[in-house]
């Protein structure tokens, strides 16, 4: 009760700040507020898809991925090179560039949407493949070894994007990434169209994951997080379930990355730091409440709200001393927030619903009954005393 009240208050406070700050900043212009809110909510929707992906991995399956940025980044770059036109200048190098060739349907203005369908699918697939490789190699590891391994994969991929200039144009990154439906609307309207698209994607992802999680498959997944041994003892292939959870989560991160690329229009290795690509997403999930997709969305909203507020503050006439440090202070608070939330309110803002796992309870009870039967034949001492 108390918890949900404070959650509502936090969300309300963030929302109020998101409206008031641009209002103050612009001297009371409503359109300034709208122009600020539209991209803000779009980014929230995009990052929430990634947070839900992490929730599938950590919140539901209990897999420990400290390399979120790897899948995020792969999704973004793959979507970009699939939808862009081929490189046409000697200063720009990248592989792919299938934009035109993918718009092969002669009807319905297919260049406005078809390449993007392929782009998103390719992004999801690439992230999923990366996850599959990683899973086969490392998913049997202990949790902390897996964590450092995922950090390593992320760092290596970041290095590859920087060092291999032919791949995605090195540190200069990719610019001019096309946007779905952009040709059908003029620029002023388009940002709302893209906002709706992002929200629709988030809704679809949310519903699909919710469906999956309450299916028998999802119940096993959640049971896995609670107690791998019981799941194994029930004859389930624990490893296969973990791989599936990991790959699915990664695919969602890839999708999020794709829409991030479309929204930003440019992506470069500098965008995908461990801090932005991994920690922030963890902070979002931990704050929102892992094991709950709604929590992941609320956490994304609050953290990204906080992020945007600090950016807004820089626009005000603050002392230089403060302006210089505000982004570092923000990062400090995000780090501290992870710690404080896990200490004081480990369930997060939106606790997981108590549907945890009746499946698990039932299995535990069955196993206990079997065990009790064994124990009821009491005389393990008998053969020994008979010696």
């Amino acid at each position, binding site marked *: 009760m108390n918890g949900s009240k404070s959650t509502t208050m936090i969300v309300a406070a963030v929302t109020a700040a998101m409206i008031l700050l641009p209002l103050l900043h612009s001297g009371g212009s409503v359109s300034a507020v709208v122009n600020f809110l539209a991209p803000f909510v779009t980014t929230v929707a995009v990052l929430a898809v990634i947070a839900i992906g992490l929730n599938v991995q950590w919140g539901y399956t209990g897999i420990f991925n400290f390399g979120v940025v790897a899948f995020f980044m792969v999704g973004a770059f793959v979507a970009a090179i699939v939808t862009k036109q081929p490189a046409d200048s000697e200063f720009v190098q990248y592989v792919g560039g299938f934009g035109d060739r993918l718009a092969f349907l002669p009807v319905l203005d297919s260049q406005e949407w078809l390449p993007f369908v392929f782009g998103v699918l390719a992004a999801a697939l690439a992230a999923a493949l990366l996850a599959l490789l990683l899973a086969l190699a490392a998913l049997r590891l202990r949790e902390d070894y897996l964590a450092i391994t995922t950090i390593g994969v992320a760092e290596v991929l970041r290095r590859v994007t920087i060092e291999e200039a032919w791949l995605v144009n090195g540190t200069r990154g990719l610019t001019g990434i096309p946007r779905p439906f952009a040709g059908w609307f003029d620029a002023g309207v388009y940002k709302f169209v893209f906002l709706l698209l992002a929200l629709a994607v988030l809704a679809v992802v949310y519903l699909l994951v919710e469906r999956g999680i309450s299916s028998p498959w999802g119940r096993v997944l959640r049971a896995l997080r609670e107690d791998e041994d019981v799941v194994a003892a029930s004859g389930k292939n624990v490893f296969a379930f973990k791989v599936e959870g990991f790959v699915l989560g990664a695919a969602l991160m890839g999708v999020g990355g794709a829409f991030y690329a479309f929204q930003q229009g440019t992506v470069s290795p500098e965008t995908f730091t461990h801090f932005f690509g991994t920690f922030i997403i963890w902070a979002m999930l931990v704050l929102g409440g892992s094991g709950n997709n709604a929590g992941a969305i609320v956490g994304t909203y609050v953290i990204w709200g906080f992020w945007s507020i600090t950016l807004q503050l820089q626009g005000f006439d603050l002392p230089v001393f403060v302006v210089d440090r505000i982004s570092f202070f923000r990062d400090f608070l995000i780090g501290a927030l992870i710690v404080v939330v896990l200490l004081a309110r480990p369930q997060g803002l939106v606790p997981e619903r108590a549907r945890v796992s009746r499946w698990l309870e039932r299995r535990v009870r069955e196993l206990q009954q079997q*065990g009790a039967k064994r*124990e009821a034949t*009491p*005389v*393990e*001492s*008998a*053969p*020994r*005393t*008979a*010696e």
Partner: protein
Amino acid sequence: MTAAAMPLLDVAGLTAGYGGVDILRGVSIRVYPGEIVSIIGPNGAGKSTLMKAIFGLLPVRAGQVRLAGQEITNQPPERLVRRGMCYVPQTDNVFPSLTIRENLEIGGFARDGGRGERMGQVLRLFPALAERPGERAGRLSGGQRQLLAIARALMLDPQLLLLDEPSASLSPKMVEMVFEKVAEINAAGTAILMVEQNARHALTLSHRGYVLAAGENRLEGEARQLLDSDEVRRLYLGE
């Protein structure tokens, strides 16, 4: 034993368990000075759980534990050993990467002085350990490991020693040896509370015994009486 004397260890109505589940429900046990007391009972009866709860490794939810008349319920183990009670767990009861000597030194960690002297006494009781004090405990055979575990607990020269299944999974020869040592330690004045699967052997050696079943007291009495009781013979002695 003089029933009038104050019990050394007095466990009264103890309830404890793991997570939300109570494994022990109102268990009562007494050990008088100089006694050997055995606890027997089927696997999973909660015997090890009882030991852990007495020793402060598991929270006691109800009931009391007194040592020499003083309340020690829920005191942490590092405090209890300083009050003259030591404990040999059922499993993982030596430090595998430490040498025999280091295991004994750690056993005497709470001593203010005389560690070397005490180690000499303990090693005289276990000559097998004195042969290779630099050997790592993880490389010892099961039997020697068990002896080392007991030796480790003796480093503080306790009034009361808690032993959880000291003879479990040992060869018949080592079982003999361990029980001999238990008798020797007791003869030197240390009271012993011992959990055993090897019910006949344990009861033969003990003064009194308790039968624990499903987390509750089932039977108690003089060890000889228990050995003769029909229920014990049928259920725990395999007759």
